[in-house]
């Protein structure tokens, strides 16, 4: 007599099969992500340097305490925050305006969009070199253009404030197209019927923008802001090439400081600690943003 197979047994066997299928992925994840992450966390509790032949030992939270009491860390943190606080709003507004303009179909609009994407496709190292030439005190085209307006040449990279402005310029130049393209995708996804209904109701263009378009673009805005926060925490190549964090430490960001501590000073424990701090901050911000987006999406679904 054939054995009866109970539904529960089928479910369990399916689960086992599913686990088996997920196993290779899990192994890769553990080896490539979780493993190094755990090792970094472990290192952050060590007093470990490669600059002198002394064995590593547990320092528990000393690296974190040293970082939090170090002016250089807060200085770098402050600079990363400035780039976020100024760069993200400026890029968002500019990105939105350009996206709204590009959303209107006109002859050659596809070519314009493709050209517009060039800055974001250029590697940050190349962008850094380009801007170093653009900002050159004597031969740079920017000072040449300013000269046509009878403005004296500015030593952009030699003064703390102008060096930071230069970084912001470059970041905005490179990342505004990214914001634009994400928002453009968001605009394209808004059903035309909504605009038609709005038009039938007699809404003005600004009412349509603020009451219809902007709320519907909100998830895209959240995504773009979250990604930009993550990218700005990681900003390294252009800063290193343009100013190397200078003059002094006027443009040193968290990632430049992490690199300096890790690969110039070879202080493994301290660089691991600063990396962990950045990871925690980014994770918290990401959680908040994702929760907000999810809440709104679920709210709308209900």
């Amino acid at each position: 007599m054939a054995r009866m197979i109970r539904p529960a047994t089928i479910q369990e066997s399916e689960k086992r099969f599913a686990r088996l299928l997920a196993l290779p992925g899990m192994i890769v994840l553990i080896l490539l992500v979780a493993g190094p992450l755990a090792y970094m966390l472990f290192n952050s509790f060590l007093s470990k340097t490669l600059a002198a032949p002394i064995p590593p030992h547990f320092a528990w939270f000393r690296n974190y305490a040293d970082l939090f009491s170090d002016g250089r860390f807060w200085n770098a943190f402050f600079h990363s925050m400035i780039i976020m606080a100024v760069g993200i709003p400026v890029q968002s507004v500019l990105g939105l305006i350009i996206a709204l303009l590009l959303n209107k179909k006109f002859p050659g609009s596809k070519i314009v969009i493709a050209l517009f994407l060039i800055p974001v496709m250029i590697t940050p190292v190349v962008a850094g070199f380009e801007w170093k030439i653009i900002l050159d005190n004597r031969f740079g085209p920017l000072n040449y253009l300013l000269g046509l307006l009878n403005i004296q040449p500015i030593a952009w990279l030699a003064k703390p404030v102008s060096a930071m402005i230069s970084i912001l310029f470059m970041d905005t130049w490179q990342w505004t197209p990214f914001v634009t393209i994400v928002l453009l995708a968001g605009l394209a996804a808004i059903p035309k019927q909504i605009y038609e209904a709005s038009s039938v109701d007699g809404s003005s263009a600004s009412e349509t923008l603020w009451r219809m378009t902007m709320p519907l673009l909100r998830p895209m805005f959240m995504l773009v802001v979250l990604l930009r926060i993550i990218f700005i925490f990681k900003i390294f190549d252009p800063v290193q090439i343009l100013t190397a964090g200078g003059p002094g430490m006027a443009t040193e960001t968290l990632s430049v400081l992490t690199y300096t501590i890790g690969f110039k000073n070879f202080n493994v424990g301290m660089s691991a600690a600063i990396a962990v701090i950045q990871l925690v901050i980014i994770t918290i911000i990401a959680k908040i943003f994702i929760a907000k987006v999810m809440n709104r999406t679920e709210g709308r679904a209900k």
Partner: protein
Amino acid sequence: MQGMRKLLFVFLVLFMVGTQAAFSQASASSKVTITVYGDQGQNLQPVEWLKEEAAANGINIEVVGVPFTSVYEKLKTEFVGGTGAFDVVIFYPAYLGEFAEFKYLQPLEKLFPVHDPKMNDVVPAYRDLYCTYAGSTYALPYDGDILNFYYVKNIFTDKSEMAAFKAKYGKELAVPKTWDDLLDVAQFFTRKKGQMLAGKPLDQDFYGFAFLGARGFAYAWWANIFGGYGGAFFDKNMKPLINSKAGQDALTFQKKLMQYCPPDVMSMGYEELKNAYLQGRVATMVQWSDIWKKANDPAISKIVHNAGISQMPGVKQADGSIYYRAAAPVGRVIGIPASTKHPKEAFWVASKLSLDLSLRSVSSTQTGEDPYRISHMENPKAFEQFGTLAEAKEYLAVVKDNLNHIFPDINIPGSAEYLDALDMAVTNALSGSASVADALNSAASTWDKITANLGASNQKKIYNAMLESWKKYGFWKE
């Protein structure tokens, strides 16, 4: 039958091509490949010159170049990884102590018979301070970097300028021998576009002085002044002295000098500073020795035969003498990693670069290398292409004199971190981000932390051993 013949012919051709390829490959693989590491560009040019001779001696040279300011981190990463990717490494002697302590490098004396590098021919201070560690030779010299004082000759001899200077300052216009004299000279020559200089209207703003202000090696330009003020990095107990009165006075003085420098001085690296001088935009500056050669190359210079070089300015002492010190940042040396599988071939390459090709290297505009051997100093004819024999003699005499008044970089473990913290402090104060006192006090406190992190007792032991060498050459005053 015809088809068989064709097929046979094709096989024959394939066989011959295959045999030829296999033979070529076997011939190439019979050579030992030596990978040379260094900062890319002009400073690896001598390695290119050596390739042909090396090939004739069964050595295939491969070159790995990295950016000028990344030599330490890339090399250290490789050493920590222990992949043995490099057989010959060209690096800055500030890292010699650390690399030797970790046994990344091998002592070289046992390899001397392979190709005698004639170390007795090396300027003694350079040989003992930059090539030797704990009594053993760990590196061969490659580039005798020392900072020198440069000026534009004709503006110092122009009668109208001389008269104007005397009228304003009540003394003769002369190449400054003290830092105070330099302040007057720098102020005097700083002029706006359209003003006259040596009887000609200026077509651009002109500045009295320039220094390297970009992050990386800016500390060395302060160290020239600090050394002249009698400063030292540490006392013998490794208490930092960079924030001493000498340190603060030197940095305050440098800030004063800055008002007579180009507005972009804080972003000037080697190239920018060199160009400012070669393009005739500054009256004076401090730079490495190779600039004199480049200044006399009409292809890149507007001040050909007009480039003056002099001893580093200093500070007048009570007895009327002038105490001066010339910093020696970079100063490349060649080491052989302990991990190389071909130490003899690697040493042959190193020794050839350090000895046989050295005169060509230090007397060429294609490289950035500077004289470091006694035989270089005694061979002004090799430098005659850049000026008269008298000018070449003067150039070599100044370089030798400044080498004899060297203010050496520290070369103990962690020197990269110590010097980076100092560089940060100097550039912070000069750019106005911090006061002189705050910047130097902060760097001194960082230095204390670095010493503690790296093991204070061992650091002191190594530092005191280094002081013994410094004392021998009179670079350390008790």
